[in-house]
């Protein structure tokens, strides 16, 4: 039995298919939630668990591919498409849009398991990336305005002297700011700080060479 910390969402307009897929997933140990239309899925208060969305292409309220496009701007579980008749253009479009798989009804058990597993695995990774980033954002949020000014300069690779000159402060003051940043960002090394800054997408605004040339 799978632990209940994973969930599969199913959107299909045919009750028999919803029911059967739910049954099969349950027999495989997955918790599932089924919806007849996309709107119901959107409205559903989803538990914060690694998840997968099995989406029928032919939905009564919106085409599955179109729905995928609507979801793309938001955080959402990886999608496994299900269709009565798969055609190549739709498949390509779905995969390009980030779908994990494109399955044709009736779908075999092994295909379904592989697709759901892959999707949930991908969701796990996405979730952990998102969690890590959220932690970094939290750390960044405790930096003072001056420290937020210093951070881009130092991770750009400027010498302390150059960064201090850029901000019009003494080198000593800058070194203090830098120490506090290292501490608050829980960076174990300067290289770690650079990696963190990269994940936070802090822009590299200066380079040592341009700084030199300005002097």
């Amino acid at each position, binding site marked *: 039995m799978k632990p209940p910390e994973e969930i599969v969402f199913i959107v299909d307009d*045919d009750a*028999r*298919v919803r*029911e*059967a*897929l739910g*049954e*099969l997933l*349950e*027999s*495989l140990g997955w918790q599932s939630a089924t919806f007849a239309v996309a709107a119901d899925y959107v409205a559903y208060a989803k538990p914060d668990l690694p998840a997968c969305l099995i989406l029928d292409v*032919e939905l009564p309220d919106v085409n599955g591919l179109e729905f995928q496009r609507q979801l793309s701007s938001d955080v959402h579980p990886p999608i496994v498409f*299900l269709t*009565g*008749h798969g055609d190549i253009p739709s498949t390509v479009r779905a995969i390009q849009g980030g779908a994990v798989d494109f399955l044709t*009804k*009736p*779908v*075999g*058990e092994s295909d*379904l398991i592989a697709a759901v597993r892959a999707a949930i695995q991908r969701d796990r990774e996405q979730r952990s990336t998102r969690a890590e980033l959220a932690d970094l954002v939290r750390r960044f949020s405790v930096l003072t305005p001056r420290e937020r000014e210093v951070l881009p300069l130092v991770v750009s690779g400027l010498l302390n002297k150059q960064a201090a000159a850029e901000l019009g402060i003494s080198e000593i003051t800058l070194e203090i700011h830098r120490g506090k940043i290292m501490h608050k960002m829980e960076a174990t090394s300067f290289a770690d700080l650079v990696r963190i800054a990269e994940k936070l997408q802090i822009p590299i605004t200066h380079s040592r060479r341009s700084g030199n040339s300005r002097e």
Partner: protein
Amino acid sequence: MPIEIEDQKPVNEVLRDREHELSLLVDMVPSHLWRLTPDGEPTFFNKRMVDFLGLDLPDTDRPGMSRLEAVIETVHPDDAAEFRGRLNRCLVTGERFTMRYRLRRADGVYRWMSSSAEPMRDRDGQIVQWYGLCHGIDDQMHAEEALRQSRRQLQQMIDAVPVRIWSVTSMDSPVYFNKRYQDHFRSVIANFEAIGEPRIETLLRELIHPEDAPEVQRTLLNCFEAGRGTVMRFRWREKDDIYRWAECRVEPRREQDGTIVQWYGVSLDIDDEMRAQVALRERERELSLLVDMVPSNLWRLTPDGETTLVNKRMADFLGMDLDDKQQLAVVFDTIFHPDDAGAVEDVLGRCLLTGDRFSMKYRLRRADGVYRWMSGRAEPLRDQDGRIVQWFGLCHDIDDQMHAEEALRRASERLAQATRAASLAELSASIAHEVNQPLAAIVANSHACHRWLSAEPPNVERAKITAERITRDANSAAEVVGRIRALFRHAPEARLPEDVNRLIDEVCLLMADETTAKTVCVETTLEPDLPLVALDRVQIQQVFVNLIRNGVEAMDAVAGSARAIKIRSYRDGPDAIRVEVRDDGTGFKDPQRVFEPFFTTKAHGMGMGLAICRSIIESHGGRLWTANNEPRGATVAFTLPLAASEMP
């Protein structure tokens, strides 16, 4: 005067001799001599006169009549009065008498005489005697009369002939005209009499059309100068200032030494002839214009097929010179599209042999090298014996029409294909969806069922539930299939008595483009006067379309010329008619399975065609079956029961 006696005869003897001589002389002169008294009484006739008249002086003494009157009696009655009058006047006045008259000879024949008499006077001037002489002038008179007669006849003839004759000695001399000509002038020239003696110049001015006059003048001048005759045509003025065409021939009359003394001209009215000629030329011109201007290409062939004429339009089209006959001969070898040339030669060659009319569509190369579609026709012209004298052909440009037709045909084909594809795709999508949903559920449920049963411990309760769902969904799928079959089986259209043969003809017409495009020919052998059958037109049409299309597609893989679909209709027993559709295609691999829905041997088929056909025929109370032909091909046959009223 001394007289020589010896030589002299006695005076009386001499006188006697002289009188004798004189008397002899008087009687011998070849004339009549006579003598009258001053008051006209005859006193002497010489012997010749007596002989001529057959009467002597004493014979003129008749009671109650003077001698003169008796003599006058011998003068021709027509001349007698004048004779008497003249003679009496002379007797009174003493003038010399002279006259021509006819005198009766002794044998009663009148002879012309020329007579004259003079008086002899005495010293006082008194008339003593009249001496007269008269001699025969009959031959002369007759000659003169004959001449006069001849002249008169000639003149009459000249005046009577229906031509206008004139003569002239030179350009400037007066012109002589015959009466007809003069009459003509009088009727045309208002003041003709005032002109006096007309000259050529006057006539040119007055009579000849101003446009023709200079030329006529020039011609006459040349003619007179060169001394040669000429012929000229011009318009002359008629009454009421109407101009008519005339032809004038001019010839010189020469003396024996060759000098020209007179010019003669004869003018004839040739207006009707000229007008006829002009009309003829005009008609010819119009015809030629018509031939050249009709918006078609016209041509003419010899019975051997050699081109002898093309109209201007065709020459222009082909870019050839109309007058270059040799070009004509060779150009026809090069104008046909290479793909058509062989067929045209075959067909035309056959027509030339059989005399059948030629009708064909082909491409001709225009002067600029572009090939245009033409519709050509030709028919033979035969002589009285039925032999072909010429072929006349016509071809007109149907290129635009052909392209339009081709485009239309392609469009309709695409539409038909699209419609067929669309409906099939739609149908298949709908069927797929309808059947696929329960199938998807069944598959998922059966996997789940398997899982529940394989679990440790097995979850039998859940397995049962899923198994029940499998049954339920499978039934639902079967229902879908049933609904589809029902869809094709029953249609609530009204069935009316129809002529199946007519229906077949209609469908063949409908399918003509499709079959022609695939170079399949459809042959029908339809039994005439088949009874009517109550049927749904649209459905039975659909059956025919399906069967023909199946046949055509079955022959796609068959190469060669024998691509034919044969449709036969005939009475099948007392209460049905039968229709067979045969093809020469690949045949059915498994004739029994062809009616199973979705069974197909075709690459792009749905496999519904024959199933639908059978269900339609069965819904009409008939049967439909298939069989393979020997050595190849297949036959689909079906029966339709007769309408109750049509059964014997």
